[in-house]
């Protein structure tokens, strides 16, 4: 391989793929970054085997020449050193040339580094992509979908499948579900694909968090391809691969109650602040529980008692309140997570009794939903 490349573009790409490189890996080759030069440009790859990030530098961008490929080829270089070197090189262009035995010379101005590289054949192969199986979601919407579901994944390893978010594609609709068996977050999106496609995969929550960090804000479309082993998110010049979780995701649709005995509509922001205040004292207690009771005159009372510390009560005017009287306790943390995840100013909460799960939805929309299991108190 022999290339000369724009340092800024290289540094940006290195920074992107470094997000996937882990220092604590058991596979020696994964401590490196793979560089591949072809007639089209230069591709950088970083991976910790769970997620892999590929960044592409085209030959030119906006009329500016970025890469000159004199001899195509590929090499794996120690990520830790390579990233530092690229950051600190003196000149605007960098020459990278491989010699015998994977020795790699990095030249910029009068500075010259000689790095011992590895054989690029040793690097894991990423799945081959079949473009026709891609569907598109705008970046902002994708990030919102991740934000609205991923917080609810389980952190315990007792049921590993619950550490991921279930992506189910059916009838041209993508349904994302996450649950830790105490709460559930669900988000539906219409996607423009033929209706006979059906997928059901579980993507690790950690991968989605990483993806959300690396995607630029904006409305540009992200191509998504699901393969047997991996899922691929493709933005302009950036590919993000993640392994999937193996196993069957529990059927969650029947957990969501369809009827409702008490329906409350509240202003999301006011309600969130009231819960936050109530949880100030509850946080010290064992499980951060607050109590919600309906009062006559469309009023709600939120309270929390911690015997050693004290008590807090607050009354809140609901936008509307229908149905039976109710007295219910739940985790303040789960409630706040759910309220933060929902968009919209007004949200509707449907209860079916003090011992049954309840559902939060934005008013006039069923594209997102948060379900919380109440806490039993005596």
């Amino acid at each position, binding site marked *: 391989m022999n290339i000369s490349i724009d340092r800024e573009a290289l540094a940006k790409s290195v920074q992107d793929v470094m997000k996937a490189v882990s220092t604590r890996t*058991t*596979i*020696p*080759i*994964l401590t490196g970054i793979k560089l591949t030069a072809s007639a089209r440009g230069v591709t950088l790859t970083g991976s910790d*085997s*769970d997620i892999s990030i590929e960044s592409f530098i085209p030959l030119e961008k906006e009329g500016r020449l970025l890469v000159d490929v004199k001899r195509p080829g590929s090499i794996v270089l120690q990520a830790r050193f390579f990233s530092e070197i690229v950051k600190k090189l003196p000149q605007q262009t960098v020459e990278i040339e491989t010699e015998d035995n994977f020795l790699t010379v990095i030249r910029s101005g009068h500075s010259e580094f000689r790095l011992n590289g590895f054989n690029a*054949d*040793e*690097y*894991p*192969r990423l*799945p081959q992509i079949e473009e026709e199986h891609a569907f598109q979601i705008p970046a902002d919407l994708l990030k919102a979908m991740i934000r609205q579901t991923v917080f609810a994944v389980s952190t315990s*390893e007792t049921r*590993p*499948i619950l*550490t991921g978010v279930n992506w189910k594609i059916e009838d041209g609709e993508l349904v994302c579900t996450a649950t830790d068996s105490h709460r559930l977050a669900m988000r539906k999106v219409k996607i423009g694909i033929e209706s006979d496609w059906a997928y059901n995969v579980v993507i*690790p929550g950690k991968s989605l968090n990483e993806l959300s960090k690396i995607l630029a804000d904006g409305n540009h479309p992200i191509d998504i391809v699901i393969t*047997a*082993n*991996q899922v691929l998110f493709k933005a302009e010049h950036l590919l993000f691969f993640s*392994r*999937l*979780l*193996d*196993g069957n995701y529990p059927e969650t649709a029947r957990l969501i109650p369809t009827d409702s005995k008490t329906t409350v509509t509240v202003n999301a922001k006011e309600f969130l602040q009231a819960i936050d205040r109530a949880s100030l004292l509850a946080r010290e207690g064992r499980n951060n529980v607050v109590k919600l009771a309906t009062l006559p005159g469309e009023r709600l009372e939120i309270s929390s008692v911690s015997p050693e510390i004290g008590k807090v009560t607050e009354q809140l005017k609901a936008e509307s309140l229908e149905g039976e009287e109710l007295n219910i306790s739940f985790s303040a943390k789960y409630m706040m997570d759910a309220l933060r995840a929902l968009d919209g100013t007004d949200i509707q909460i449907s209860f079916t009794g003090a011992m049954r799960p309840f559902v939060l939805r934005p008013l006039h929309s069923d594209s997102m939903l948060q379900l919380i299991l109440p806490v039993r108190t005596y």
Partner: protein
Amino acid sequence: MTMRWEQLAKRQPVVAKMLQSGLEKGRISHAYLFEGRRGTGKKAASLLLAKSLFCLSPSGVFPCFQCRNCRRIDSGNHPDVRVISPDGETIKKEQIEWLQREFTKTAVESDKKMYIVEHAEQMTTSAANSLLKFLEEPHPGTVAVLLTEQYHRLLETVISRCQVFSFRPLPPSELADQLVGEGVPLPLALLAAHLTNSDDEALALSQDRWFAEARTVVLQLYEMLSKPELQLLFFVNDRWIPHFSEKHQLDLGLQLLFYLYRDLLHIQAGQTDGLLYSDQLERLQQWALTCPQRRILDGMEAILQAKARFHTTNMSTVLLVEQLALQLKR
């Protein structure tokens, strides 16, 4: 070191046959337990099994040893073949938890995954119990291989959920050949191969200058037996004792002396093949001629007795060797 099926079949015929027929019939167990002494080829066999499963262009069950997958299994870079070895003294629960997380994810490249746990007996009890869960509910396409030298230290519950393969110790002659192949001179290789079964240990031993010296001291001691008593005792104190100062060293020295007597006996019986001190053949033949068979046998008995005394009692090593030398001289 890369092992081929032919080599495995030579060393561990039973294991090779069973594994091969399992591969041919597509009946691969979800968990194997390879047990056997150090250096019996357990790890190499597990990597061989991995290659047979992952090779891109296999002929039957025989991997090509050339393709990316074969090469990456050897270099430890294949993302779907993971090796776990003790972190310090034991295999910690976190390592098994990491392994469990790996189990729950799809494979990186193919639809198969393989995990090799080295020194499985070093798993802490809680680590072993965590592993049990996988062994009880295997994931399709996942193979675990546990390697152990101390089979009996594993939990019963773990053993009962694995298909167990016992690896026989290596024949010394083969180990010696292997050492010679690694550049060890034949005389040292033969002795080292008889003293230990592990190829690592044998190699380390035969590359140690101390060991070559030890062999010379042993030969010198035999020569000194024909000298006056005082000179003999002086030699013991001046050369033997300083050289074999540690307990395990003395044990090894006595063993070397025993092999020398064995060689003499072989020569007297007319067998010159398989001598351990074969490079000293002329000297040995001369010694064998001048020494009655009775004395050789008595000498061997004396050495064995000295060894037994040395292990069971707390006798001073100086006295022990002096006594032995005088017994041998008689």
